């Protein structure tokens, strides 16, 4: 069978599975719609959380980013997993004990303030929308590349599928669909990784291949990689180029942001007991860790494969570089998408891929007759092109397409649900129309999910650059606004509504301001985004950690000068601190 039809078949079968599950587990009450009736087994919730959390970015972009960043890519690995430790130890069990439906609801009750709840709703909607646009975009890219359809068509199909199971099934439908999506995703991710590990190192387990020798006897994988990339003027793979302080703060911001993301937190509302919430966080991270420990191996193997394809002979020798006319098929395929671009700057018909931004390497490159780097590789293609680069069978390529779509859809659905719950439960039911019945609230939840999908699909259609800029924003805002407010709400009796509101607004405005100042969302940047201009050498990606520290400081200071919270708040905090 041809690759195209095979891909349609595999992707189509996965869609049929999701729709079947969604239909079987559709929500009948608001409790089922918001928190799956709190009947989800901790292992199932762990899988669902893993699928919810691992987005198109984790599946498609992360290994590629690591491949090109080397050590600097560690910020994603540690940041996006370490947050679960904070979630399991500091937030999830207590929020489960609180026992209601949404994150803003907790903030509203704990600080006895509708204003605090509204500030939390605003933070939640900004964070979740930012995120969902990226997912819809991911769906569009996969469809257009693997199924050869227009991005708009791909987006529409993706929207229709998410609409069907998120709107019909609510949290209950999403949970069981995400379990299936996790299985599809992890299978699709690990199969090519195992094949490639075997090819390069003769070791079947990618985590071990990472520390193994390559089969041609030229030494350990990472030593060889350090060698080949430094020969081309790049920084050594295992040391990186970012400053240590920046790596520290980006990692911290991603950890705090992960723990503060509403669509992840709310998953722990769905298990039956407090101790299930603790265990479930462990299962979630275990399932996530399978992909996250394979990713750095994939990154290293892919970087080596790519470099050796472009530079098959000794660096600087006349025939050492790939002749453009002999380029492999995958090279042609990806050139057609514009994600791989070759420009023959010195007109020798060969491809030179090296670091032309390194002044120390410039004289060497010149002596070889090289006149600039000739190949631009978008890091997103590493995972998608990997099976083709390694010459794996067509069914593996089809599987990767289905896996990438599963990753994007599962995250999009989780995000849609928290947005719709914030609108129907935190805005309509609690503020604007408190008298609506449960049936009407359920309908409002479905309608707002539908509106959110349409808006996300529309925003995901064009804004490529926009998405890249706002990803830092989602994590930074979650770290600087929601995380401190929830944490203080559990671990302090004294922090009151004035403190919480002032803290959240300070964190929000500071982080938003810093990111806009350097990256310019909606407006032109005010200053060049370089280390010399940054506060203490911290990039916009890491500034959320500073925003969180400011939030904590302001919240505690303001609370100290204002009256303590009412006695009911003390009772609430005492109640959530013990399981029974």
């Amino acid at each position: 069978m041809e690759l195209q039809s095979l891909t349609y078949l595999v992707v189509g079968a996965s869609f049929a599975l999701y729709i079947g599950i969604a239909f079987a587990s559709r929500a009948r009450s608001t409790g089922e719609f918001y928190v799956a009736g709190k009947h989800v087994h901790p292992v199932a919730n762990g899988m669902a959380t893993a699928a919810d959390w691992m987005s198109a970015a984790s599946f498609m972009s992360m290994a590629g980013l690591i491949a090109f960043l080397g050590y600097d890519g560690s910020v994603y690995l540690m940041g996006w997993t370490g947050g679960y430790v904070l979630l399991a130890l500091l937030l999830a069990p207590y929020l489960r004990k609180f026992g209601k439906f949404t994150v803003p609801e907790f903030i509203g009750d704990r600080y006895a303030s509708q204003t605090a709840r509204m500030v939390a709703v605003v933070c939640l909607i900004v964070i979740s929308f930012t995120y969902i646009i990226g997912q819809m975009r991911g769906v569009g890219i996969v469809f257009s590349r693997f199924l050869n359809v227009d991005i708009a068509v791909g987006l529409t199909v993706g929207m229709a599928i998410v609409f069907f199971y998120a709107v019909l099934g609510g949290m209950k439908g999403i949970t069981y669909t995400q379990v299936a999506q996790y299985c599809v995703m992890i299978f699709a991710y690990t199969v090519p990784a195992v094949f490639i590990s075997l090819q390069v190192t003769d070791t079947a387990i990618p985590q071990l291949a990472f520390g193994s020798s390559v089969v041609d006897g030229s030494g350990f994988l990472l030593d060889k990689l350090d060698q080949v990339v430094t020969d081309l003027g790049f920084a050594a793979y295992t040391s990186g180029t970012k400053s240590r302080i920046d790596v520290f703060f980006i990692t911290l911001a991603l950890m705090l942001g992960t723990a503060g993301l509403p669509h992840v937190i709310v998953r722990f509302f769905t298990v039956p007991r407090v101790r299930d919430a603790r265990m479930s966080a462990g299962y979630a991270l275990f399932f996530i860790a399978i992909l996250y420990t394979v990713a750095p191996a994939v990154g290293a193997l892919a970087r080596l494969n790519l470099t050796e394809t472009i530079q098959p002979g000794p660096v600087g020798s006349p025939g050492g570089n790939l002749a453009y006319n002999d380029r492999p098929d995958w090279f042609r395929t990806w050139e057609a998408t514009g994600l791989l671009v070759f420009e023959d700057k010195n007109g020798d018909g060969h491809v030179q891929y090296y670091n032309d931004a390194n002044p120390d390497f410039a004289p060497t490159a010149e002596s070889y007759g090289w006149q600039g780097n000739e190949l631009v590789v978008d890091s997103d293609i590493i995972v998608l092109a990997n099976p083709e680069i390694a010459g794996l069978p067509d069914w593996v390529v089809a599987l990767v397409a289905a896996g990438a779509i599963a990753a994007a859809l599962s995250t999009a659905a989780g995000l849609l649900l928290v947005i719709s719950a914030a609108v129907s439960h935190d805005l309509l039911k609690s503020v604007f129309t408190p008298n609506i019945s449960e049936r009407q609230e359920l309908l409002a939840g479905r309608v707002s999910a539908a509106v959110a999908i349409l808006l996300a699909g529309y925003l995901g259609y064009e804004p490529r650059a926009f998405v890249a800029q706002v990803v830092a924003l989602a994590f930074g805002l979650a770290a600087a606004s929601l995380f401190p407010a929830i944490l203080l709400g559990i671990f302090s009796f004294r922090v009151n509504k004035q403190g919480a509101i002032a803290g959240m607004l300070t964190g929000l405005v500071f982080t938003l301001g810093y990111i806009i100042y350097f990256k310019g969302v909606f407006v032109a940047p005010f200053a060049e985004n370089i280390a010399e201009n940054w506060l203490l050498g911290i990039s916009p990606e890491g500034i959320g950690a500073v925003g969180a520290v400011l939030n904590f400081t302001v919240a505690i200071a303001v609370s100290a000068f204002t009256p303590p919270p009412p006695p009911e708040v003390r009772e609430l905090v005492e109640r959530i601190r013990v399981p029974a």
Partner: protein
Amino acid sequence: MNKRTYWQDNLRLVFLCLVIWFVVSFGFGILLLDTLNQIKIGGLRLGFWFAQQGSIYVFVALIFFYAWRMAALDKKHGVGED
């Protein structure tokens, strides 16, 4: 049942786990990277390994360890759910 000692025990356990959490990631993987990279086990430099693999394994173990110890504390202080 004494909620105050339960909470104190919980805080002590959380603190211990967070120290380990900090040491393996921010300590071994970032601040001590260059020192630990001098040590090589097989084909892996230790600091780099902690940053890209080791810290993640420790995180998973930490959460299960915490859940296990907390279940014991719930029982000891009579605040468990069953």
